[in-house]
């Protein structure tokens, strides 16, 4: 293992220390329990948006804390869900009196820890709703698995929902918007190389020089299928068509019903893409892929979207949801309506994403 680190057990702590020193005008960092929060928190009267997850996906989530995006982010150990005490303390710190929205990626650990945290926060009199992001089309069914993983759409949801919170959306309307973003986003990723969790010291899987792994998540876990390496155009086509041709996807989410005062199951369906759809195209590096390669992917993605009648109205290209030093990429397409486009364009000022502010 070759990494720019001091001690494997200090990686997350020292990363947070560095972030706090680098962006004091945007964020602050609380230690024990660990969370990153807006420098001007709590913002009175605004719903506070909180996310979190294992570390190793930088800039997500800590790098997306700031005006127009997240109010707080709870980083776990590398690839390990954070714990309820982090989420609870973060909620208490940034709560501006209008409630909390937790944006949770669909991994069993994240779901359980955020559920416990939401119950604990409610017990302390804070209104909390959570929305689950599950957009990874590499997972075909939800019957015999945990369901689709939360990947690229998470970044887009955090931007759009963060802008809406800034605009004054109340909690329920904000949760509905976040659900809308999730149901309209789809992603698929691939890896050229594995990655090494610092504390483990060894790569999480092995790939031969001429092999690639298709349908990976963001935790260095093996993917759906291993195959011989192909060209950028062929890989882009494989990923893009898996997304564009994905049929309607149904699943059940457990959400908190405020009227009943309990968790209930709701059925949700993601409609498929169709010609005429306006989309945001997001080409993401898994961390190790150099930026010279991403436009090559985007170039082909643009061509395929044109051919399929999808109009790319916005794009995002770069490393935003990574998997340590893994080489590879993911593509996310998000169907946009006017509300989402306006919120996407709204000012944002965070360490990882900044415009118009």
């Amino acid at each position, binding site marked *: 293992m070759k990494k720019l680190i001091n001690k494997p057990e200090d990686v997350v702590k020292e990363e947070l220390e560095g972030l706090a020193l680098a962006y004091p005008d945007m964020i602050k960092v609380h230690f024990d*329990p660990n969370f990153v929060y807006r420098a001007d928190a709590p913002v009175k009267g605004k719903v506070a948006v909180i996310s979190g997850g*294992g570390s190793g996906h930088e800039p997500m989530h800590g790098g997306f804390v700031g005006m127009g995006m997240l109010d707080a982010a709870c980083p*776990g*150990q*590398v*690839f*390990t*869900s*954070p*714990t*309820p*005490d982090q989420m609870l303390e973060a909620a208490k710190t940034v709560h501006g009196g209008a409630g909390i929205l937790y944006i949770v990626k669909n*991994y*069993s*650990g994240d779901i*359980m*820890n955020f*559920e*416990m945290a939401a119950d604990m926060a409610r017990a302390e009199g804070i209104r909390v709703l959570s929305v689950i992001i599950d957009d990874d089309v*590499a*997972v075909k069914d939800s019957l*015999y*698995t*945990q369901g689709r*993983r939360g990947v690229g759409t998470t970044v887009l949801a955090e931007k759009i929902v963060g802008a809406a919170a800034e605009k004054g959306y109340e909690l329920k309307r904000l949760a509905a918007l976040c659900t809308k973003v999730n149901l309209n986003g789809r992603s698929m990723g691939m890896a050229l190389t594995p990655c090494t*969790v610092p*504390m*483990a010291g*060894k790569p*999480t*899987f092995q790939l031969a020089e001429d092999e690639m792994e298709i349908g990976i*998540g963001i*935790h*260095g*876990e*093996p993917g*759906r299928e291993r195959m011989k390496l192909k060209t950028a155009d062929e890989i882009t086509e494989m990923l893009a068509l898996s997304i564009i041709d994905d049929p309607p996807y149904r699943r059940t989410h457990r959400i908190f019903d405020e009227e009943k005062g309990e968790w209930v199951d709701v059925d949700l369906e993601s409609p498929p893409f169709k010609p005429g759809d306006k989309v945001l195209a997001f080409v993401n590096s898994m961390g190790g892929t150099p930026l010279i390669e991403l436009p090559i992917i985007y170039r082909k993605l643009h061509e395929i979207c044109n051919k399929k009648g999808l109009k790319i109205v916005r794009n995002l290209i770069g490393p935003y949801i990574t998997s340590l030093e893994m080489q590879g990429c993911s593509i996310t397409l998000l169907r946009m309506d006017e509300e989402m486009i306006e919120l996407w364009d709204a000012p944002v000022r965070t360490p990882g994403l900044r415009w118009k502010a």
Partner: protein
Amino acid sequence: MPITVEKVKEFLQRATEVLKENREYLTELDSAIGDADHGINMDRGFQAIMSRFPTFEGKDAGTILKTAGMALVSTVGGAGGPLYGTAFMQAGMALQGKYEFTLEDLVKALEAALKGIMNLGKSKPGEKTMIDAIAPAIEALKKALANGADPVKALEETTRAAEEGMKATIPMIAQKGRASYLGERSIGHQDPGATSSYLLFRTMLEIAQKQGS
């Protein structure tokens, strides 16, 4: 012979050592079908229990196990944190106020723990999880007690059932957690959660054997 609160403390101490010894092994099992952190996380969690050890002085078994559960929830993370944390907290609630307890009480505590895991994880036996080691272990313990086995013998059978349950996860297709994404590729790998659960039962037996000698 009743189980004393001292044995509970001994169990937690020994379990911490056992999980430390098996840190690489559990992480390696998790690399194959998960995200390569189970051994690291369990080690961190039990170290956190040890750091709370001074507060156990004079406390009942229920309070100690609940405190241990809270320590796991707030330090382990992943799925293992809430699941093991809930298990210890539920077991603690079943043993509330007890400074010594019987094997029948232990059955009740383990059943409460299992119920907590199944509720939180929305899981059942046969899905390649820790439940596949724990559920048969509890059944074996109940059977042994019904047949009048002595404590060490009963825990031997419990541990054997946990081990068989753990091994039975090898040919299973994972249906919960990150391993579930692998589908059929999860076949042939032993579940790391079932393995750590087996190690905890084995530790229980070890403490009982020491008591018997």
